[in-house]
């Protein structure tokens, strides 16, 4: 199995700082904006970005977790049902600006399911998508991210592995060739 390092901890911190600046540019006071991380792997990223934004803006920003498992379009098309994770959206998103956060944007199907799942909590004024890695030319649906950490050219046979750890020191993002 061949592995290639795309991002390490130092570079990732720079990237995230840049993403936070972009967010603040478009949402100067975060007055009407909420952050929702996509289960399971967008959560850690969402928490981290949330932490950075709260620190630099010095105000409370609502943070939620959304699981889109029950809205996926591949149910009964795979052998085993996907296992759901916790959804925790302790606020209504009616009329809010929502920033969805996930680690990797690949086919776009997870984001489509998430948009569906999100509607159960109200009709947002606007929805934006932030991803750490955008795999170019792999989309199966007309979905694009508004904020991108890094664009990566990949083949279908490759996989992006995001390893984030809680002390923020040993992050690694790999491109892996499947055998």
């Amino acid at each position, binding site marked *: 199995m061949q592995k290639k390092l795309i991002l390490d901890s130092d570079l990732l911190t720079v990237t995230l700082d840049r993403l936070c600046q972009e967010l603040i540019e478009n949402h100067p006071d975060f007055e009407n904006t909420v952050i929702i991380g996509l289960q399971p792997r967008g959560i850690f990223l969402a928490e981290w970005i949330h932490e950075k934004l709260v620190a630099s803006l010095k105000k409370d920003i609502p943070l939620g977790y959304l*699981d889109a*498992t*029950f*809205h*996926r379009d591949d*149910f*009964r*098309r*795979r*052998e*085993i*049902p*996907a*296992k*759901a*994770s*916790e*959804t*925790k959206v302790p606020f*209504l998103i009616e009329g809010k600006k929502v920033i969805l956060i996930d680690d990797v944007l690949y086919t776009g199907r997870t984001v489509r399911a998430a948009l*569906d*799942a999100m*509607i*159960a*909590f*109200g009709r947002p004024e606007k929805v934006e998508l932030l991803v750490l890695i955008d795999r170019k030319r792999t989309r199966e649906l007309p979905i694009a991210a508004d904020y991108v950490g890094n664009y990566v050219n990949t083949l279908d046979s490759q996989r992006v592995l995001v390893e984030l750890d809680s002390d923020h020191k040993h992050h690694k993002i790999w491109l892996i060739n499947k055998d």
Partner: protein
Amino acid sequence: MSRLSQPHLLGIKNITPDDIELIFETADNFKEVINRPIKKVPSLRDVSIANIFFENSTRTRLSFELAQKRLSADVINFSASTSSVKKGETLLDTVNNILAMKVDMIVMRHASVGAPHFLSKHIKANIINAGDGTHEHPTQALLDAYSIREKLKTVKGKKVAIIGDILHSRVALSNIFALKKLGAEVMVCGPPTLLPKFISKLGVKVEWDLQKALAWCDVANVLRIQLERQQIKYFPSLREYSLYYGITKKILDQLKKEIVVMHPGPINRGVELSSDAADSSHAIILDQVENGVAIRMAVMYLLAGATA
């Protein structure tokens, strides 16, 4: 990603502790779903489910139907009293006719023990037993154990007394299997005539004295006297039963401890449970009903999702 070990839910006896844990974890997610502003998810879109009830039911049928609708399944309902069963059609013919209309899953209640097991040997659809005679009622046992887990954090090591008409109760048998598999201690309590002769072989304690049972247990699961199934007299009168085995608020208060009171419904108020006990803070009877929808959503989601 995980799946159940069986393509059907015929009884708790046939499933593993891991299956039960998977159902509980999935039900946690669905419980969150049914408390959302919009309670419906599209998971079972294009899955058709037939609810076939050869015996009366309010709660179970409504609970299944609501669970199916929250999962966006297509639902057809069938009750024996208004069907061709009255004209002499056999069970297998009835079900095969329903399946010919491209139905994927059958939820069945039947007065005969083993009816869903028989069906599972002859048809391809997933089958969920919603009660077969005096045998099993698996989704009830799952929601009971789930409610205990929710209230007391865990089922393992808890002491559960099942009180009342054990002889005619499918809820009792399924509960015993489920609670034992999850590591609880189980006691059955009732008049000797309503306790099956060899019930202790299932590894449960047997007690005739209600006071002793209540003093022992953390959870009292109170069952209804099933007069409709009793062909002979098992006790002199309902009044006498109520005097010896009826639970009142006064009895609960005298225990001076935390006790959880459950009842699968329908309650005969004033017989096995007095009104003040049923409506007291000890009772989690309505939580059981809410959890029933989440549990049934989880079971149907897991069964429908495992396609290979």
